């Protein structure tokens, strides 16, 4: 058995789920990846604002 077929068989449970229902869950996976990317971007933006506010607080208190 080649390694590729072995991996394929090992992942068959997931594959079966992903290919069922007209492959709808593939779309769900894609949307979730995009959504997690947006969350990351949102959190990073907030962190940047936190830093800016801290710097401004320091400067204003001078």
């Amino acid at each position, binding site marked *: 058995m080649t390694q590729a077929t072995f991996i394929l068989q090992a992942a068959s449970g997931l594959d079966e789920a992903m290919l069922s229902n007209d492959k709808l869950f593939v779309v769900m996976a894609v949307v*979730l990846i995009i959504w997690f990317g947006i969350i990351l971007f949102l959190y990073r933006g907030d962190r940047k604002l936190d830093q800016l506010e801290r710097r401004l607080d320091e400067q204003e208190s001078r």
Partner: protein
Amino acid sequence: MERLSMEIASPRVRVPKYRVIRLVVVIWMTVVILGAFSFGGWVLAIPRIEMLEHTARNLYFHVPMWFTMMAITLVSAYHSLRLLQTGQAIRDIRARTAALLAVVFGLLGLATGSTWAHYTWYEGTNIWWNFDPKQSMAAIQVLIYGAYFALRTALDDPEKRARIAAVYNLFAFVTVPFLLYVLPRQMESLHPGAEGNPAFSEITDPIMRIVFYPAIVGFIGLCWLLYTQRVRARVIEERIEALHQPIL
């Protein structure tokens, strides 16, 4: 009226509260997405309707764009009203940011609706824009909010701009229920709710409500996060400007 820039620092965004809501929205929307795609072997089986097929799920994404737009125009109008009452510069920042998000969600609503209709009701045709009453009125609504920004760029004095923009914004808000609700319902349309029908179509399976209503809440929450982030950034900008002004 006191000088606008003097009061900018007073009511700031409450960051700890924001962080809590951010976490709630992130988890909430993830569950909504999982719910939107679940059916068959899973919990929420939605009926397969000829022509619509899986695109019925667009109900969870397209329609909340409009609910979100209406919610954020309400926020925008509230802050415009408060600006006229108090003259606080933060009200102008909030009203403007909310109006910007109203335009964003309006455009998303138009784009998603157009895409949905093209591959279902207008499948096999070349129609992307069909002058459905709701579609046309929504486009006018987005233009009305677009004009708010055109008006702002035409005014140089910050105090005058804040006040005139607030008055215009209140007018813009008054048109929302007419353009998005009253008028489209008087005409023939492929949207449910046309010609006096209930807004939720009778062919829509009630099970879809389980995801639909949370999706509305989730998208409004997401919009609120983006809005708050923008407001914070604007306040920081104003504070930097104030730092660079010579102290009298």
